[in-house]
């Protein structure tokens, strides 16, 4: 993979910020969009914008074909058995909330357990807290090892015959940890629980195969993988989805509507109430084509190299703490001694370098790390080693800038 060539397809990267070439290291928050994705959105709005699944007219057919075509692209991308298992949602958060509100509320009761980890993003914690509160179920946490990874022994000892749902992120948005979700899922299944995987940080960077993972639900977002914001996916095994009730009711998801009762469309549409996110789905389809052409394995290798290079360079600067395990995705979360991450991010921004500072929507993990916030540099297919050199220089500048104060 040639990152220099890839960069050419991302118009936003070719600009100066505060008089310096932009170094965008915040892709874990949201990725930038390549020309083919921008063009797919534009083409839809310019040439065949129309509602789907209803019009008899030509534009309606084109829009429906493109929308359902995108669903087939997603199916192939995650290797689902059928497009009936691919539900378009607003994003990972909505996907997990759908499982919690539909499956969780109707299948759990007092005495049951939901098992998650302390490294989860808020979107994979709060929906389960709500289910626990409403059903009387107990929320339990798999403890983390000192380096922020998960030991399967601990999974074994946390999951019991009372556990009904296990939900774990595949890649940590803070530590970059790649979690053994397949093995965790096998343990969950052994105890009769279902396995939910938060794939928000994995689908952009790793080859995902939901059949191989054998997970029951898998949630991810388009905007972190070069696609537009506002759309994501909930994969669910057909047998489970068939038994579940929709959470949103209205147009698009119905079969027959009578005065006092109605019936639902078949899968996947019964979970897609209202006019769907048509342009978003088409844009996501274009992003999938784009990533698949380059190859997820190539992307993953490139990011691993960048992370390794960054950590090597950063380790040479005194007073920098890097969080997380050695083996990781392209995410480096860190702190500089005596400099608050906001101040780090502001000084780097003055150098044209965009990083994230804060709690990364993972307050329980921050508590576990014994810090209130951190700075995070996250890499994607369009980043280069030259950019890491600028970033490392920026860190030295930051240290010097604040150094005279302390």
């Amino acid at each position, binding site marked *: 993979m040639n990152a220099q060539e890839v960069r050419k397809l991302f118009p936003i990267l070719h600009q100066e910020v*505060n*008089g310096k070439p932009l170094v965008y290291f915040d892709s874990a928050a949201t990725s930038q969009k390549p020309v083919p994705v921008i063009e797919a959105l534009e083409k839809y709005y310019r040439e065949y914008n129309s509602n789907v699944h209803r019009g008899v007219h030509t534009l309606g057919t084109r829009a429906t074909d493109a929308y359902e075509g995108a669903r087939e692209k997603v199916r192939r991308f995650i290797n689902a058995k059928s497009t009936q298992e691919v539900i378009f949602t607003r994003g990972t958060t909505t996907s997990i909330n759908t499982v919690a509100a539909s499956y969780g509320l109707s299948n759990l009761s007092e005495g049951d357990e939901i098992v998650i980890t302390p490294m989860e993003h808020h979107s994979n914690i709060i929906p389960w807290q709500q289910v626990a509160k409403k059903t009387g179920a107990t929320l339990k946490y798999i403890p983390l090892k000192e380096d922020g990874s998960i030991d399967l022994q601990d999974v074994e000892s946390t999951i019991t015959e009372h556990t009904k749902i296990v939900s774990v992120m595949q890649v940590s948005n803070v530590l970059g940890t790649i979690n053994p979700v397949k093995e965790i899922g096998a343990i969950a299944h052994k105890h009769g629980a279902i396995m939910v995987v938060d794939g928000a940080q994995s689908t952009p960077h790793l080859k995902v195969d939901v059949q191989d993972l054998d997970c029951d639900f898998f949630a991810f977002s388009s905007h972190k993988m070069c696609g537009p914001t506002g759309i994501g996916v909930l994969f669910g095994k057909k047998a489970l989805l068939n038994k579940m009730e929709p959470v949103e009711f209205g147009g698009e998801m119905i079969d027959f509507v009578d005065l006092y009762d109605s019936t639902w469309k078949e899968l996947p549409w019964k979970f897609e109430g209202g006019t769907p996110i048509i342009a978003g789905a088409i844009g996501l389809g274009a992003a999938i084509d784009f990533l698949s052409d380059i190859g997820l394995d190539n992307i993953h290798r490139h990011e691993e190299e960048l992370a390794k290079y960054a950590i090597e360079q950063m380790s040479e600067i005194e007073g920098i703490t890097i969080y997380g395990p050695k083996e990781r995705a392209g995410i480096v979360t860190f702190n500089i001694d005596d400099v*608050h*991450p*906001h*101040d780090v991010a*502001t*000084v780097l921004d*003055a150098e044209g370098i965009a990083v994230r*500072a*804060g*709690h990364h929507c993972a*307050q329980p993990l*921050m508590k576990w790390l014994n810090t*209130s*916030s951190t700075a995070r540099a996250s890499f994607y297919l369009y980043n280069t080693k030259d950019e890491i050199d600028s970033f490392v220089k920026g860190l030295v*500048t930051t240290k010097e*800038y*604040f150094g005279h*104060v*302390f």
Partner: protein
Amino acid sequence: MSSNLDQLYRQVIMDHYKNPRNKGQLGEDTVTINMNNPTCGDRIQLHLKVVDGKIADAKFDGEGCSISLASASMMTQSVKGLSVEDAIKLAHIFYDMMLGKDYDDTSFDLGDIEALQGVSKFPARIKCATLAWKAMEKGVGNEDEI
């Protein structure tokens, strides 16, 4: 290094960050307000002692960036001794300053506070600077304004 950055991190701000004034707890008869900035995790615990409509004493504890902690330190310094009414007025002068608007610099001696002017050039940091002032307003019961 850009001059905007030097305006943001002026020496007096760094001094308040490094040597915060009025850090700690107050004794009895005080109002305690906990406030945080949910988007970034900064948090402040402000203690106010209000006697006969006057802020007799103010202390704070907290975690946050240089701007939020320096601002908290400066805020406690400048509201001490002010009537509740004046403290609220001063908060609003400060908000105007943060938004880059023309602000009233004649009614009060703004002292160190004016050093925070540079924050207005960094929209993402305005919330850091206003956190302690919002806590103060809440503490004196001016929640409607927040």
